[in-house]
């Protein structure tokens, strides 16, 4: 995964609270492999027969501004794949469901949390606005207004470096093996018997 520090794009508003993962990608599309691409499934049911849906009204949207508790529901990472494959780099909301936010960061998508999301939603209305997002300063510009967003240092570094946790962790294999051996010594019962009938 490639890291990034700034993003210039176009924002549109999805003024809905609790946008859940079943809306972001309905379950029936989730058997596709990643290579096949998930972009076409993004908000599939909300968009069907609805030309006024923000992403269909405008082309080239890469920043989605939404209501609070975005991404609640399932742990399906496909929700993040669908957003990314449809060209979204940043979702701005007052709050995010935790699993979704973690999945987003693991795939390079920024969940930008700001108390001002409601105001931005209102300012956008049904229009679009140019946006510049900066991970270093944790600020973004919508047209010419500046806002701050919250992002933990851990997540910021992951996005900037495009880090893959697996590499980070594999460098600690020795510590992990030592932990495993100690745990097995202390609590052998944690290891299931190999072949119960």
């Amino acid at each position: 995964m490639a890291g990034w520090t700034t993003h210039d794009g176009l924002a549109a508003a999805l003024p809905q609270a609790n946008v859940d993962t079943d809306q972001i990608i309905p379950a029936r599309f989730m058997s596709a492999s990643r290579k096949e691409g998930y972009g076409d499934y993004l908000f599939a049911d909300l968009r069907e027969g609805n030309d006024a849906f923000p992403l269909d009204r405008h082309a080239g949207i890469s920043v989605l501004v939404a209501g609070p508790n975005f991404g609640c529901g399932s742990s399906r990472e496909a929700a993040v794949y669908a957003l990314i494959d449809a060209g979204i780099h940043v979702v701005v909301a007052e709050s995010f469901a935790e699993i979704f936010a973690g999945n987003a960061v693991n795939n390079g998508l920024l969940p930008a949390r700001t108390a001002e999301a409601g105001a931005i939603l209102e300012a956008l209305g049904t229009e679009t606005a140019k946006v510049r997002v900066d991970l270093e300063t944790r600020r973004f510009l919508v047209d010419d207004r500046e806002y701050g967003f919250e992002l933990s240092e851990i997540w910021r570094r992951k996005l900037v470096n495009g880090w893959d946790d697996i590499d980070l962790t594999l460098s600690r294999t020795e510590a992990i093996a030592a932990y495993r051996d100690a745990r097995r010594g202390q609590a052998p019962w944690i290891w299931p018997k190999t072949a119960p009938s």
Partner: protein
Amino acid sequence: MSRTLLDKLWDAHEVAFDEENGSLLWVDRHLVHEGSHHAFAKLAERDLPVFAPELTFGVADHYAPTRGRASIADPAIAQMLERLERNTERYGIRLFGLRDPRQGIVHVIGPEQGLTLPGLLVNCGDSHTSTHGAFGALAFGIGATQVAHVLATQTIWQARPKSMRIRIDGMLGPGVTAKDIALHWIAKLGTDGATGHAVEYAGSTVRDLSMEGRMTLCNLSIEGGARFGIVAPDDRTIAYLKGRPFAPDGDDWDRACVAWRELVTDEAARFDREVRIDAADIAPTVTWGTTPEQALPITSTIPDPGTFDGGRARAAREALDYMGLTPGQRLEDIAVDQVFLGSCTNARIEDLRAAAAILKGRSARVPGVVSPGSMLVRAEAEREGLDRIFVEAGLEWVASGCSMCVGMNGDVVAPGKRCASTTNRNFRGRQGKGARTHLMSPVMVAAAAVTGRLTDARALMMEQS
């Protein structure tokens, strides 16, 4: 220093900690299912082995057909199941596959097989992994990238959540269940009410719940925003686990029990947040909207969205529009088209017994499906004759899987149809495109089946006694 149960579980699993990355936690049980295919693909791409296949277990549930298993008609579903078989075989992971008599929903069979134990860290690529917290385990759902990480390293990076205690005291009224406790607190605090927190459930009401009830309660924690729901283990936990196939035995069992008894929050420990609920305030609860927080006692009427504040008012209006309901309508006047009794939330044996008690000698006015939480639950129910009660009432008795909880296996509610359901999410389209879902407990679903509308199960219970 006084510690909460969360602290104890966390500290025991911390392999490493650094300011930059948070805690690296050891994973004792990793459960995978058909939906884990992305993670296996990531592993294969990098040619990495599974670090601890002996601690990893596979289950076919999300796409498991509930009928006609001998020949699966849908090639996409057959492919998902084959992929899981291939991946688990390739990495030496034990699989409870479609033909295994122990097959069932991952969060039902973990505890049932004794794979879920107090003090463990349990991960699964499913948000309702919080279910296993009912045993005093640190259990949470993860996404595909993290599943790949756990497969490769048997660890997971996490930031320690804040601690929250929901204390429920007093006796639950008749017909009031763990499902109602959960819907009650979620309605009160909102679907993001516990975001960022691990919830420990405490109080006399929780102590009095069966393990099945505690699992239902912990299962639904995620619907209130909490990734973790925990109940401290006690005699009931230990009695449930004794003799389970994968649970320890002999000396190991004795040692384990000693360790498990330590898993309590210290008297003087402080929580970041405390919520108290009086059990007497909880009524049989049903959802009327499209998020679990849009829930009310069955005796209520549909609220006027105008009475909510800004964002919630809009959400309520949209929900009522989708659900085809109008403010002022009595919940009990809402007719349903069908019922579903199933899912990892409410399809354990106790749930089936409770529903059967209502349906016994009665017939259902609307069609419905009963999908037990596991094939072993199914077998037990058949031994007890519960299947005959369901079938004689006119409901369909099918095999175990996630089924209409998520609709991946093709079991769906048709567009515009209204379903009284024991599942966990009333999201738009969750049970199928355009489906309208009302969440409630198994007794309430049984009551809705009998009358063909949302119904206060207590009335039917009175008639019986």
